[in-house]
């Protein structure tokens, strides 16, 4: 999904911030998620060590990606898996639609996969008159609503159980209930029949082990296992960064992924998928395809700063701690990948239309702190901001930069004389005090309203404590 324009983003985020109900739901879910993860991490003394090891493996893997992709392909092909390299979203879509047509698919069941959201696979299959059914509970819910996921691992985080109860009542013609267990049972019954009927299954991939030619899929519900084993044709879609060198490397990732994502030690199911079923076997698919997607990833690889973006495991931890995500939710970003990670992924994946997203951050650094593979997201955000500003095709606010420079120069002139700065501050504080509420100014006349349109302005102290930068206290 290509992101919306910068104006669209402002509009959507203003609406989201004003949506009290959405804020309540996000705060509720994000707080739980953060608590679970924090507990799981504190209880696991090796967390730091595993994190370091995972980071080191990613550095190695991305550093010799060409060899690893070759090895992976060779191992998979030896077992009869068809491997397709897609340069962009269109190539991936076309290939998968072709496979579905060839399989005579009328119904395609899908496991949760952000990569297929990225390439807008559902739309392409539907366009080819093939029914697509999301089977992860959260994905099923947002699909019924005609929406996109608003969180990488909790797609329906923006909905309350009452919202979902009403949705099921309207779309599935069942009596209203807001009980999560009852709602889950309804979805189970509906989807069970589809798993056995579908001709084709599509899932994402969490890790691909080059050494053994194995795809690793982690999930909690069992829909991934169903999708990968029940239909006759199975297609796995992976970004090219998912490959890791050896089986031995895997445990480092699995030990951190579930803990940071959901606070579990391990997800309920971790499936190791090798290829189509062998003679005599009951499970597994007749045909198996692996689509390895570039779609801007090799450009990230070539950029020394952006490169570590490819280490991302899609755990969603950065969304859960982000003050911006916390206030506007996933949909306002307008991109497949919301939150901090989305803001550094989207510009290369979706191009110019996402170049404003790196600005949607306070640079507080919480995302970097929580990232299990230690991606320096704030640094990358700044890098992308610089890129967007320098790019003549991108966003440019030359007047804003000029004004900021002028303002800073004026301030510098005043600040050179501490007594003048103190005096001006005290005067401003006294003059403005009658207009302030709780120490903040909510509205100011132009041109200062440029500030107060978006945020309150703190009232200057009437007794400012100026310090001399040349002689900081304690020196």
């Amino acid at each position: 999904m290509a992101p919306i324009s910068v104006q669209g983003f402002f509009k959507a985020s203003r609406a989201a911030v004003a949506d009290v109900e959405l804020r309540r739901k996000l705060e509720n879910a994000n707080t739980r998620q953060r608590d679970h993860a924090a507990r799981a991490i504190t209880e696991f003394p090796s967390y730091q060590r595993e994190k370091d090891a995972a980071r080191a493996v990613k550095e190695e893997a991305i550093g010799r990606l060409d060899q690893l992709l070759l090895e992976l392909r060779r191992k998979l092909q030896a077992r009869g898996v068809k491997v397709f390299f897609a340069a962009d979203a269109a190539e991936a879509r076309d290939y998968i639609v072709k496979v579905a047509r060839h399989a005579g698919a009328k119904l395609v069941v899908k496991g949760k996969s952000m990569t297929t959201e990225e390439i807008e696979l559902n739309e392409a299959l539907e366009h080819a008159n093939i029914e697509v059914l999301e089977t992860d509970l959260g994905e099923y819910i947002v699909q019924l609503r005609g929406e996109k996921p608003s969180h990488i691992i909790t797609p329906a985080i923006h909905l309350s159980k009452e919202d979902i109860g009403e949705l099921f009542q309207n779309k599935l013609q069942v009596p209203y209930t807001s009980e999560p267990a009852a709602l889950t049972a309804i979805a189970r019954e509906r989807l069970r029949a589809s798993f056995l009927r579908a001709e084709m299954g599509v899932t994402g991939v969490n890790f691909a082990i080059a050494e053994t030619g194995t795809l690793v899929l982690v999930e909690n519900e069992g829909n991934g296992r169903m999708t990968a084993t029940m239909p006759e044709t199975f297609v796995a879609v992976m970004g090219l960064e998912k490959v890791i060198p050896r089986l031995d490397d895997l445990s480092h990732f699995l030990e951190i992924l579930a803990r940071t994502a959901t606070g579990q030690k391990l997800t309920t199911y971790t499936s190791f998928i090798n290829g189509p079923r062998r003679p005599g076997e009951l499970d597994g698919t007749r045909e198996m395809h692996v689509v390895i997607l570039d779609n801007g990833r090799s450009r990230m690889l070539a950029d020394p700063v952006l490169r570590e973006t490819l280490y991302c495991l899609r755990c969603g931890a950065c969304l859960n701690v982000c003050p911006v995500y916390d206030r506007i939710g996933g949909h306002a970003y307008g991109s497949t990948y919301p939150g901090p990670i989305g803001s550094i992924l989207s510009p290369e994946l979706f191009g110019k239309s996402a170049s404003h997203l790196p600005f949607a951050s306070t640079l507080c650094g919480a995302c970097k702190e929580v990232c299990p593979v230690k991606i320096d997201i704030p640094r990358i955000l700044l890098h992308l901001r610089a890129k967007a500003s320098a790019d003549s095709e991108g966003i440019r606010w030359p007047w804003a930069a000029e004004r900021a420079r002028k303002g800073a120069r004026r301030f510098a002139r005043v600040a050179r004389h501490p007594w003048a700065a103190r005096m001006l501050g005290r005067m401003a504080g006294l003059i403005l005090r009658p207009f302030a509420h709780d120490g903040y100014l909510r509205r100011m006349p132009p041109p200062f309203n440029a500030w107060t349109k978006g945020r309150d302005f703190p009232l200057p102290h009437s007794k400012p404590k100026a310090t001399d930068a040349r002689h900081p206290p304690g020196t």
Partner: protein
Amino acid sequence: MSEFQKLLGDVKAALEHAAGKRPHPVPEAAAVVPMTHMARRAELGSKFVRELEAVGGQVLEVGSASEAIEKIAELARRMGARSAVSAEALTADLARVDAELQRQGVEVICTGPVAKDDLAQMRARIARADLGIVEADYAIAASGTLAAIANATRPRSVSLLPPTSVIILHIDRIVPDLATLMRTIGPEKVSENPLVLITGPSRTADIEKRIVLGVHGPKELYVVLIWPKDE
């Protein structure tokens, strides 16, 4: 494979553009405190039980394989199970579980190699079974995880389709952690057979982050833990 050549070319060019750093060495695991076999077994066993219970699994502890058979028959009776499906066990003594269930009037679906034409029918039968019985190859103490390696006589759907999953585990198959499990199974076995790690019953937290058990996989998970105490 021109699309592949092109992509690989792009990747290579990208790598050359940003000359890679040397990877950091992977830190070694902490040393293990020396322990007697029985003490180690007790530690792994009790840790496994606690962790499995924490994720919503239930443990039925037995002293021997024949006791395990009795326990499974009793469970089927208690649940009022009408049909069960079992995968081939690793421990020969467990072959009698089918006979015992049949004696009780439970229809038992045996899974051997299946002919191509019978696949859909066989799956539908497994999907209707009340109980799926498999033996785990290994287990992880640290997370309460079971590992099942699949093949023609041990299909994956037995632990997936029936609403109640019974997994037999011998205590000596428990390893301390995931890294040890991966080393124990090894790359060769992983590249030959499908493998699934199971940590508790199927679950979701997609609705307001509330945990609900039994989404697409089993709602109930019983582990029949064979733990001989006399040695």
